[in-house]
């Protein structure tokens, strides 16, 4: 087990090195920091002096090493547009994205588990059929179309819910939160419903498939034979054993959810990290882009490593298959 954890950590560090190398290359190949600094009207000789001062004439590996060292200290360069450290900009945008993902997760859990269990227990009922058909079609609908449909219906036609921005937020110890005002909560509804619609089909199918598999096992048959109450068999005996695969898949999908926030945030003008990233692309704000790349890289590596290690604890096959 210890060897497995060590191997997993080495892989994580390797991935971070690759990500940082990509980030470093972008920062140094695209755009010219000297020109960003002094503009056009400076002689080539003076430029050379500035280049020397900034250390841009150092060998490649020296510059890369400096980049990694600064990154480890949390210094990912300055954003040209915001005139602030890039990491600070990202951290200030993070609460919006995190709150969106939190509410989405809540919706996912509250909808997919009951629906999946119901569809597994009564596979032939009309409700299960509708759920399964909807999840087939749901996979084919791109998230931005769901978003546009929701906006058109609830914001343009019915005028029930706002479709734009975060609304009123409360500042709690530096954390801009939309949870504590009625307006902020109303703004959360459409984006989070939209974001959860990407994952719902997958999760309903997953819960249903796992549950159906468990219901076929011997110990469930034994539980029936003992004459236990329906609900006890379903929820205590069967459901508990479907949780493990569901949690694992969820861990991995959480990362994918972060990726899809870029799309959702664009449609709803939600000022989170994804929206900021696209703005950075439009403004050619290279440092901010690189900083975002590194931050997302860290998020992914941490999530994947944690999920793998937890899974390694629970399921010995993973760590044995890895050794060979």
């Amino acid at each position, binding site marked *: 087990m210890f060897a497995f954890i060590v191997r997993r950590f080495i*892989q994580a560090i390797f991935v971070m090195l690759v990500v940082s190398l990509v980030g470093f290359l972008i920062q140094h190949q695209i755009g010219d920091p000297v020109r960003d600094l002094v503009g056009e009207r400076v002689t080539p000789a003076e430029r050379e002096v500035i280049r020397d001062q900034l250390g841009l004439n150092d060998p490649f590996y020296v510059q890369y090493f400096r980049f990694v060292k600064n990154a480890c200290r949390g210094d990912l360069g300055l954003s040209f547009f915001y005139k602030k450290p890039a990491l600070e900009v990202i951290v200030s945008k993070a609460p919006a994205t995190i709150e969106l993902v939190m509410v989405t997760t809540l919706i996912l859990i509250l909808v997919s588990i009951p629906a999946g269990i119901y569809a597994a227990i009564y596979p032939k009922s009309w409700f299960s059929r509708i759920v399964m058909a909807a999840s087939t079609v749901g996979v084919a609908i*791109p998230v931005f179309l769901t978003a546009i449909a929701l906006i058109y219906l609830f914001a343009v036609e019915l005028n029930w819910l706002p479709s734009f921005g975060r609304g009123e937020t409360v500042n709690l110890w530096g954390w801009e939160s939309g949870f504590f005002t009625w307006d902020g909560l109303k703004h959360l509804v459409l984006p989070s419903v939209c974001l959860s619609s990407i994952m719902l089909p997958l999760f309903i199918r997953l819960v249903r498939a796992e549950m159906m598999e468990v219901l076929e096992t011997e110990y469930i048959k034994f539980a029936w034979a003992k004459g236990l109450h329906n609900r006890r068999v379903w929820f205590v005996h069967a459901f508990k054993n479907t949780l493990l695969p569901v949690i694992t898949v969820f861990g*991995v999908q959480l*990362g994918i959810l972060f990726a*899809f926030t*870029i799309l959702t945030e664009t449609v709803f003008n939600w000022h989170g990290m994804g929206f900021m990233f696209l703005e950075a692309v*439009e403004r050619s704000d290279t440092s901010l882009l690189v900083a975002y*790349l590194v931050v997302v890289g860290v998020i992914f590596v941490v999530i994947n490593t944690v999920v793998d290690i937890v899974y390694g604890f629970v399921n010995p096959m993973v760590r044995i298959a890895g050794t060979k």
Partner: protein
Amino acid sequence: MKAWNRFKNSYLLYSFKRDPIAILSFSVLSVLVVICILAPVLAPYNTHDTATFDIMDGETPPAWMEDGSKSFILGTDIQGRDLLSTMIYGLRVSLLIGCGAVLLQAFVGILVGLFSGYLGGKLDSFLMRITDIQFSIPYLIVAIFTSAIFKLAFGVGRYAELAVPLLIIIIGVSNWPIYARTVRASVLGEKNKEYVEAARVIGISRWRIMFRHVLPNTLTPVLVISTIQVAEAVMSEAALSFLGLGMPITKPSLGSLIRSGFEYIFSGSWWITFFPGILLIIFILVVLLLGDWLRDVLNPKLYKG
């Protein structure tokens, strides 16, 4: 003729005939593909020619609505282009990029899978580590990052000019690991069979065995995942274009058409978003349903990641 007879008696055709969903989705898909190929003949207007449209026709609603015009059946977009023609050309672009990207994915993935499965050893663990790492990052985020970087590197104008080949490369590079895993898994199953051993005994070279003997036997699962990959590639192209990282509005794909319509949805011009959106959903749904059917029929032991 012999091949035709074999096809006529095959299980594939037999199960196709008995599955109404497969027949329906296959016919819809064929119609769409034919329309795409014959776009210059079938589309009422040539939307790539700026002389054929007039900005004064902009935002005309569909023909059956109050202000609709008979010459534009589904109405026009903001720039006055006939929406039906723009959609046909847009689907053509989406399809071109989707298929191109999947060919690239298959090429890279099959090579990686074949080498690492057949040759094994250090190369195998190296290639598979890379595959695992890329697999752990969702393909959409890889595609978004790559296209953002390309956009910065090439500049907006050049990027718009080279959008089609660049998008093929971006989507191709972002989603190949599934091929590598699938091919490697079936190569591992094939390489210890008698026919490979026999080929080795009579002294056929390693390369020839890999490409002429092992590779053809691994192609069934490749075919199955390819259908799903096409749907995913078209979907990622639409997503990229919607984010403004894909096709420019002068040469719109379905995604960029939806993006341009979205800006006008609050003023009531719903048709610019609605029709391309429906077309996109129908296309993806049909490909996915066909992929599901194909997987059930051929039933290879897919490596599901």
